[in-house]
């Protein structure tokens, strides 16, 4: 066969190979592109709906709401519907101010409402939702059971809310599969922003930060959400960014939330920790102090105390930790289940792990999800029970919880047990999820860290 003939015989094969190569490339590119998803919305594109324009307005509205509901209840103190309305107003104020007294009062009112109404009527869904806020899962279950026992057909939004609460309960019980199914049912009834936000949180804690990001972005772009809600969603976006080590994006969304809804302490705290991450620890400390001058919240005190600790400023750190301690104790007294995890967080970072251990154990027994189990494992590790810590963390991993924090905790447990190989593997897992997981500066992330 001549060279020309050989060339002639080869070209169809070369063409076929080229076509296959181009097709494979196109498919791979499409798959890669679809994983990237649409880019984040620009902060300037985000528009608010009507509603409070600042934290002060939100608090004022919450106070007015509570006063109005209280006045209406005074006209007919035995009516469970009015009790439910006041309870809801109180929950809103709790959300605005962080007052556990409001949450406790709402809880008591709903107890009363449930007792005074003939089953299966009554404020069942509100009961379930508020119990969930107070981390009382059994009570939330009972409320839901009563809601689903109603003979009447609830509207789609109510049903979505009920299935969302069922998902939240499953989530806190560490059953990620049931959570996913419940949220999917909620979505079938009403594909609203609350469900999308839950789906985003679930995706993040299952290790799919990209899906979490896309869902939150959809909410940020959504119309008819007020400034307060969008600011909180922006902080959720920042939390997702922290989860994957994208500190730059986290800073953008924290600062957006702070500007979009001025005076919001949590957004300001996110900005403060961003400052610390950027190396301006003194600036972060000043910002935290400014927040606390207006809103003496124990979680912000803890963040400040921890930042000061990392900076080696012992006396100041201890002073803030000591100011936070009685506030946590008071919250724990009012609503022990709701405050337990935060109290454990405080004790582990700034107090005594031995004090944290029994509270962490009880919380993990009630709510055996990843976050509670990681806290318990940390308490176990710091009190000398590395084997217990490892077992606790393996339980969290088996539940489907995926976060860099989980794998870093696993690495610590393996190290304490002398298994350097397993510790290195766990550390690699953590870095795969969050490339900045082991960066020493990551310790400055108090809010929304993984």
């Amino acid at each position: 066969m001549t060279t020309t003939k050989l060339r002639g015989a080869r070209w169809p094969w070369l063409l076929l190979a080229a076509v296959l190569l181009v097709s494979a490339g196109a498919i791979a590119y499409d798959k890669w592109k679809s994983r990237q998803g649409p880019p984040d919305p620009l902060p300037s594109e985000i528009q608010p709906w009507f509603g409070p324009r600042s934290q002060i307005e939100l608090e004022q509205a919450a106070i007015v709401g509570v006063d109005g509901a209280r006045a209406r209840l005074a006209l007919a103190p035995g009516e469970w519907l009015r009790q439910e309305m006041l309870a809801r107003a109180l929950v809103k104020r709790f959300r605005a101010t962080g007052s556990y007294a409001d949450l406790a009062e709402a809880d008591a009112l709903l107890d009363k409402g449930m007792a005074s109404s003939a089953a299966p009527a009554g404020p069942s869904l509100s009961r379930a939702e508020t119990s969930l806020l107070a981390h009382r899962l059994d009570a939330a279950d009972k409320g839901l059971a009563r809601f689903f026992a109603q003979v009447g057909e609830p509207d789609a939004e109510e049903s979505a809310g009920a299935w969302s609460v069922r998902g939240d309960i499953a989530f806190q019980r560490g059953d990620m599969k049931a959570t996913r199914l419940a949220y999917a049912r909620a979505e079938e009834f009403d594909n609203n922003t609350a469900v999308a936000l839950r789906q985003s949180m679930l995706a993040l804690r299952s290790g799919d930060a990209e899906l979490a990001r896309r869902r939150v972005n959809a909410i940020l772009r959504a119309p008819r959400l007020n400034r307060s809600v969008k600011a909180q969603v922006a902080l959720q976006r920042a939390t997702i960014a922290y989860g994957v080590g994208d500190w730059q994006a986290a800073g953008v969304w924290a600062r957006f939330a702070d500007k979009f809804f001025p005076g919001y302490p949590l957004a300001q705290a996110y900005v403060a920790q961003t400052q610390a991450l950027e190396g301006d620890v003194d600036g972060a400390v000043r910002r935290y102090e400014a927040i606390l001058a207006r809103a003496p919240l124990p979680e912000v005190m803890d963040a400040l105390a921890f930042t000061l600790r990392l900076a080696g400023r012992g006396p100041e750190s201890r002073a803030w930790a000591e100011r936070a301690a009685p506030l946590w104790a008071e919250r724990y007294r009012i609503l022990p289940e709701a405050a337990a995890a935060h109290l454990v967080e405080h004790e582990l970072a700034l107090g005594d792990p031995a004090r944290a251990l029994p509270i962490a154990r009880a919380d993990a027994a009630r709510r055996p999800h990843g976050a509670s189990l990681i806290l318990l494992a940390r308490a176990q590790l710091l009190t000398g029970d590395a084997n217990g810590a490892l077992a606790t963390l393996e339980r969290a991993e088996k539940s489907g919880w995926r976060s860099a924090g989980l794998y870093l905790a696993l690495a610590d447990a393996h190290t304490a047990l002398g298994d350097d190989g397993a510790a290195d593997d766990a550390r690699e897992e953590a870095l795969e999820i969050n490339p900045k997981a082991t960066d020493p500066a990551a310790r400055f992330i108090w809010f929304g860290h993984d």
Partner: protein
Amino acid sequence: MKSIPRRQTRQRVSSGSATIDRLIRTALALVLALLSGPALAHLTPNSEIRLAFAPGAVTADVVVPQGEFAYATGLATDNRPDSLAKASARVLADMAVAAPDGRPWKITVNRIAFETIAGPPDLHLTLTLTAPPGASDRKLLWRWHVVTREAPNHFALLVIDGDLAGGLKGERELVGALTATRPELLIDRGHAGLGSLFANAFRLGAHHIAQGYDHLLFLLALLLPAPLLVGGGRWTTPRTSRDTLKRLAWIVTAFTIGHSTTLILAAFLGLRLPTQPVEAGIAFSVLVSSIHAARPLFPGREPLVAGLFGLVHGLAFATLVSNFGLGATTRATAILGFNLGIETVQLGIVVFAVPLLLALARWKHGASVRLALAALTGLAALFWLAQRLGLS
């Protein structure tokens, strides 16, 4: 798979919730979703204590995060003499090492500094611990309250980083984590005599040279043209086998004398050079020997060059022998074992290479193969040189 029961269709009789304003419900649902940010564990940097056991003494390399030290003690964290003295006194006050019968070990601070090792700065101490008379130098109780006394959520990892006599060669062995609630750990390394020290040192030397490709490449590149005569600035015809063997023996002996000299000086007189120039010097020696394998640079003076570069190679081994014990006998035993380990592997490789070198010198393609091997060695040397000089 766990399934969620599907909803039954019902007729509404009464639902208080349905009467609530739709907007309020949406807001509350969002509140619930947004409140779910969990409380999580925050990590604090931990301390680390690395112990190296040697006959007669234990050395401890202690790293305490500077921020945690300042947080716990309130002491200054700069490198002024009085700050360091206070830091040293504080650490010594908050720690103790004792024999199982309770008698204290002597703790000497060799070095203390606030410095950056990796990440944020640390307080870094090097301690020498000496057992009380008559007590075992391989069994001790480590008591630690540094930082953990004031910060119960801090912990220190206690690690055995070296125990040549006990057979630990380079790998770490974790003893445990020292916490506020568990401030003591007992370490018992068992018994180890001079025999096991010698055997382990031998294994360490053999292991080190077997993995020291740069050392071996230097020697092999130097041996590559040994069976050849020089003519007109090139390697030409083969020598006699007898001449070749004599030259090979001189080169290998000179290299051995060279690296053994610096090794012994390092072990007994504490001779040290920074790692980077030593490692770069070794890469340079490989480069020189590879060029010499291609074109004669110093014909006839290979033993001298092998001896001189051997001094540099010995410095690289010196870091491994820095903790071979306090007593002259134990140190000499360890050095002897280590060096014999090196020489045994080296000799084995030379014995294996000699017939190949002789055959190569007589093969018609021998020159091309030699040039190719020299080029590959030169490339490897250039890569190492760039890497060790921080250029890549």
